């Protein structure tokens, strides 16, 4: 299986075998078993909106593979301020780099960039749409905490999602990627922030067993993974409604009394109060370790699209 020259735009473009191939390469990266580039490779990071974590982990990953990095961290220093189109910007930058990583506030921008550019384009987040490398990172975290995940004949994992499931793009991408694997998905949110219909349709079409609920206490004891995302205040039209429901979506250590020993709690970070700090000290907390997987996963993706492995 070769990824050389491929774009990484949306998890919807990846098959089960391709996802497992990326995770296998990430395991090699983590063990320091990926080779280094023998010729000088340049990665351009084109971040039209700020992101510290994604940009730094991409830069770290490229440098660990022996490559170099050019780019910008916000659009204010680019000619897009002069009115240059994204398409033209990409056509210009493609001459300077072997791989492009783009983050842009508009949905579909990474797909357009991939159509404009000859070198591989990696989507570092396009508005509320996709953030595929975060999803591969999340899948790698699930694989690390449940090593038999993805193996043939394994019983399905029961994976819960808690918080704002309507606008949380990491939830959308991860649930679609999980549809390739035996699992049962439990979506826990206020009704106004439930999983959107177009995502539910994809999961239903692929035969994924889905449950929806409003109370985490009713489901947490049966879960193998709980993926928590922020409830964002600005998503509520009625601020009183926000104040009323937010307490029901805060995970506390006391709620973990009867959970499965192998339950692991994931979170794409940053958290803003939706997991209390007493959870950090339980063996179930995995979110900080999860964040550390960003570099090997991005090393794996860069190595694959640049034909290093």
């Amino acid at each position, binding site marked *: 299986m070769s990824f050389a020259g491929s774009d990484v735009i*949306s998890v*919807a473009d990846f098959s089960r075998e391709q996802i497992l191939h990326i995770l296998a390469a990430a395991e090699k990266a983590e063990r320091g078993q990926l080779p280094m580039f023998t010729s000088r490779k340049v990665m351009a990071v084109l971040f039209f909106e700020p992101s510290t974590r994604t940009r730094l982990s991409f830069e770290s990953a490229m440098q660990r593979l022996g490559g170099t990095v050019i780019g910008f961290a916000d659009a204010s220093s680019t000619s897009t301020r002069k009115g240059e*189109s*994204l*398409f033209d910007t990409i056509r210009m930058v493609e001459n300077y780099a072997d791989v492009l990583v783009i983050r*842009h*506030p*508009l*949905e*579909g*921008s990474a*797909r*357009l960039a991939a159509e404009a550019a000859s070198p591989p384009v990696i989507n570092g987040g*396009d*508005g*509320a*749409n*996709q953030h595929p490398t975060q999803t591969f990172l999340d899948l790698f975290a699930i694989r690390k905490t449940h090593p038999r995940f993805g193996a043939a004949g394994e019983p399905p994992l029961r994976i819960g999602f808690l918080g704002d499931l309507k606008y949380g793009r990491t939830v959308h991408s991860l649930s679609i990627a999980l549809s390739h694997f035996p699992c049962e998905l439990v979506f826990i949110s206020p009704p106004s922030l439930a999983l959107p219909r*177009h995502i539910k*349709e994809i999961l239903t079409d692929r035969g994924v067993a889905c449950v929806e609920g409003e109370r985490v206490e009713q489901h947490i004891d049966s879960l193998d993974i709980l993926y928590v995302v922020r409830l964002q205040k600005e998503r509520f039209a009625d601020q009183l409604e926000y104040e009323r429901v937010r307490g029901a979506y805060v995970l506390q250590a006391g709620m973990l009394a009867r959970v499965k020993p192998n339950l692991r709690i994931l979170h794409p970070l940053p958290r803003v109060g939706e997991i209390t700090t007493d959870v950090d000290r339980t063996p179930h907390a995995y979110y900080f370790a999860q964040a550390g997987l960003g570099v090997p996963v991005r090393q794996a993706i860069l190595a694959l699209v640049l034909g290093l492995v």
Partner: protein
Amino acid sequence: MSKKEQHTTLQVPAIEHGTVIDHIPSHATLTVVKILSVLEDLVTIGINLSSHVMGRKGVVKIANRKLSPDEVAKIAIIAPRATLSIIESYEVVKKYTVTPPDVVEGIVRCVNPSCITNHETVRTRFSVAKAEDGGLRLRCAYCERAYDQEEIEIV
């Protein structure tokens, strides 16, 4: 021809040469006319005609003109059950039901204001699938949002 069909024919006069688009959802009839940009052509329009299959339907008759493949694709998106009849000397020489294409390019506007296609000069691209209710669901290739056919806007 049934009595009801004869009655319908009387409501929308026959044409000597041209194209008849039948079985259009009534609410979409004027959109079909708009798609065809028929400023120069003789067009007769029937809306809310009774139909065995649809209850109410629309019919559009355009004299002295055949439709381009692009126009047929557009009609198939907003009226997936429409039938097209080619008329020569008052006779139907060809009749077929439109088939929605799997992919439509450059004919539907994405209604997501945050989609890149509304900010750059991009030829839009949508994949087309049958929805559970028999209608169509269109998914934007760029922002990946899916829409019911009632929600979409023709370019």
